[in-house]
């Protein structure tokens, strides 16, 4: 088992290097760099000073040299500093000689995105599981039809449109919920309980919107998994033994139907850190999606590479964890791994 683990971890290193090389190349193949933004198209900004900036950021060097420089820094886990955001560290905070702490860009955006995604994952599981089960148990009868219809609507509805409609309904017409942002202006004067309520109120719509499409997918997945399992011989056997219906459904059927979900959740681990650009822009939430999107627009290479590297490392780890969890849950797979 340990040997298997070590082998998997060892193979992640060349994979990571490969991923970073490809993303580095693609990023640099895109036309333009930090000095060619629309704001820079200004007769007051001379071409010489732009060239000077390019030299300072090593953007005038051949791309292989640039990649080498980047790899060299990564070897010491130094993600560098952002071009666009006043040289802020990309990943983690740094303290200058005067004792001023400069927070890392990812350090600040990540907790926000994690919070939203963990909340919406919880919502997804809490809602999609029961929906999927009920749907499977009442296959082709009205409850199933209603749930499937709801699920398809949820899947098909454009998130940004629904977000705006809900913002208008709950924020402008009724002032139930705040429209955008993370905290109220009075946040700092609030009692801690008030702070929690304030944050939750701000997160209610973003979490709802970001769970909606995931919810639809998972509910259908559970439904189909359940249907597959319910038609297996061992379910018939269980019923024939005279087991109560609840035991048949929840112990025999559901546990087997959930196995494929492990893979899905393993694969969703990188998704946990990648926020949604659209939702974050509409709700004015400073999360990872917005950070990445702005970095791409500004051609802020250190930030882009930092996020991609962390993202791909997490993807590989997520795969590994999913495989391990699968082995833990399914004896058949476990035997295969241990061999």
């Amino acid at each position: 088992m340990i040997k298997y683990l070590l082998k998997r971890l060892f193979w992640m290193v060349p994979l990571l290097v490969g991923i970073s090389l490809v993303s580095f190349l693609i990023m640099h193949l895109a036309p333009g760099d930090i000095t060619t933004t629309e704001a820079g198209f200004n007769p007051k900004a001379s071409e010489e000073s732009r060239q000077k900036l390019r030299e300072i950021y090593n953007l005038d060097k051949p791309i292989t040299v640039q990649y080498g420089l980047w790899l060299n820094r990564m070897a010491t886990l130094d993600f560098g500093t952002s071009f666009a955001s006043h040289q802020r560290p990309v990943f983690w905070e740094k303290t200058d000689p005067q004792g001023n702490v400069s927070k890392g860009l990812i350090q600040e955006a990540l907790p926000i995105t994690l919070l939203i995604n963990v909340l919406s994952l919880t919502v997804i599981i809490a809602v999609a599981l029961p929906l999927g089960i009920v749907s499977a148990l009442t296959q082709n009868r009205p409850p199933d039809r209603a749930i499937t219809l709801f699920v398809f609507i949820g899947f098909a509805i454009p998130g940004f449109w629904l977000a705006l409609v809900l913002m208008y309904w709950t924020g402008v017409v009724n002032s139930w919920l705040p429209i955008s942002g993370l905290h109220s202006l009075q946040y700092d004067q609030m009692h801690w309980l008030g702070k929690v309520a304030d944050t939750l109120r701000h997160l209610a719509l973003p979490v709802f919107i970001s769970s909606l499409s995931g919810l639809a997918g998972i509910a259908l997945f559970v439904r189909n998994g359940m249907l597959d399992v319910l038609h297996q011989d061992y379910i018939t056997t269980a019923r024939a033994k005279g087991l109560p219906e609840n035991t048949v459904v929840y112990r025999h059927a559901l546990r087997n139907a959930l196995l494929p979900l492990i893979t899905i959740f393993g694969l969703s681990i990188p998704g946990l850190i990648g926020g949604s650009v659209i939702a974050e822009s509409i709700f004015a939430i400073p999360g990872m999606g917005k950070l990445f999107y702005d970095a791409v627009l500004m051609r802020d290479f250190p930030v882009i590479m930092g996020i991609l590297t962390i993202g791909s490392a997490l993807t590989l780890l997520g795969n590994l964890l999913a495989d391990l969890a699968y082995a833990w849950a399914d004896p058949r797979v476990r035997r295969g791994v241990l061999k």
Partner: protein
Amino acid sequence: MRSHSTSSVCALLALSLLLNACGQPETSPKTDLDRPYPSEAGGTQIDAMPAEPSGLIAMIAGESAASAVASNLFNSLLKYDKNLELVGELAQSWQISDDQKTITFTLKPDMKWSDGKPLTSADVLFTWKVVTDENTRTPYGADYKLVKQAETPDALTFRVSYEQPYAPALDTWAGLQILPKHLLEGQDINTTAFARKPVGSHYYQLQEWRNGERIALTRNPNATQGQANVERLVSRFIPDAASQFLELLADNIDLMNLNPIQYARIVPARPELQQKLGLYKELGNSYTYMGFNLKHKPFDDIRVRQAINYAIDKQEIIDGVLLGLGEPVASPYKPGTRWSNPALKPYPYDVARALSLLKEAGYQDHDGDGILDRDGKPLSFEILTNQNKQREMAAVLIQRRLKEIGIDASIRVLEWASFVGRYIKTGDFDVVVLGWSLSLDPDQYGIWHSSQQQPGQFNFIGYNNPRVDELLERGRFELDPDKRQTIYHEFASLLLQDSPIVYLFAGYGLPAIHKRIKGIDNPAPPAGIGHNSYEWYIPRPLRRNEIAVE
């Protein structure tokens, strides 16, 4: 089953807790927003910005979000008044030597930084050294490097000498925000923590900066220009324009710039919005144009350029793209300012003139396919523009008008970086639809002088007129405003005559401001609605219910 119902009760409880917490009382609807109130200090004004500043040292940050906040924190030596004339800000007065090469600024006495330290000419000299330093990562250093020598004979005098007279110099000193030497000396300006906790001298000082959420400014007790009325300015970062508008509707922000549809259709259709929002109109700082590549045939022929200019209906574009909320321009200067030549009128929409000019140039529909041609080659070209809705819509209207007189134009819309990198820098384009700013200083050497055609320079259309070159050069040496005015009026009329670009429109800025904010100049002077924002005030009965701040 049981656990199921318990959890739903919990969910209901949580929901009602959430909903209860939000019943914040609004200003009572009965409060009369329209009656006059006496001016008084205090209150909070909230606005929204689409992006977060990267830092608050404007010369390093460079983006508009940074300038918007920094302009409330820092002073320059000079500023533009409401009619866009230069007046002193930190400087009490300035003298130009007889040979026009030396400018001596005299600072106002007893000025302080917001931390109480004195603000002197040493700070000005320090700022000049920073902006011209080789290691400073600013794209705006070039203007200041023209200064041959800068000195401070005493604490209130700052003197700069140029190699040659440089007329835009005064404008450049209105654009350089003075930084405190005592806090920045010996630090790396590119990475200093000062950019995130600045100390300035203007009306406001930084109170709080929540990354990704908002910046709050509060009045600076040591302000060099007197005290502003509004106690606290909060700028929330809301990237999405639709969300900003919803926040405005819900009364969570006090002002934003509307788009023409919101301004002309949505707000007027809703009485409850008209009741609480004041709509204003100010001329924006830029114009949109269609530029020809003068190095490509047939645009080297002035008759073709003029014909196309006559064939485009500018008013139609203003009505279609801006719902009428814009003005045609005939020179690259703001209408109503001294640099704008009132005698110049845009090319009228005149199809007959266009066709006869094209006929003179040899273009006629010889083969009867509906497209004009000369020597067997049809008159067709591609209009390039970047992803900007207004420019795209303008291009479509132009395309239709050109089609009517037999010119076949296609449109290509590109992402900014590839637009500039692949087409502008290489000069590989026929026609572009783009914008330039209506600059406050009339010097536009970088855009129109024939020497500025290298890749990366800004005369990418290849305009070359010796007389214009001469005027642009003379204009740079002439510091007397009246003589400059004559020079640039002639320049603008030659430019209009040559028609290297078709002026399409200058759009209005369309601010909507909640009526709780009083003291706004309406109609807006050339400098725009915000020119006296320090005089704006929020009468106590109209303020939001705020938890007291200090």
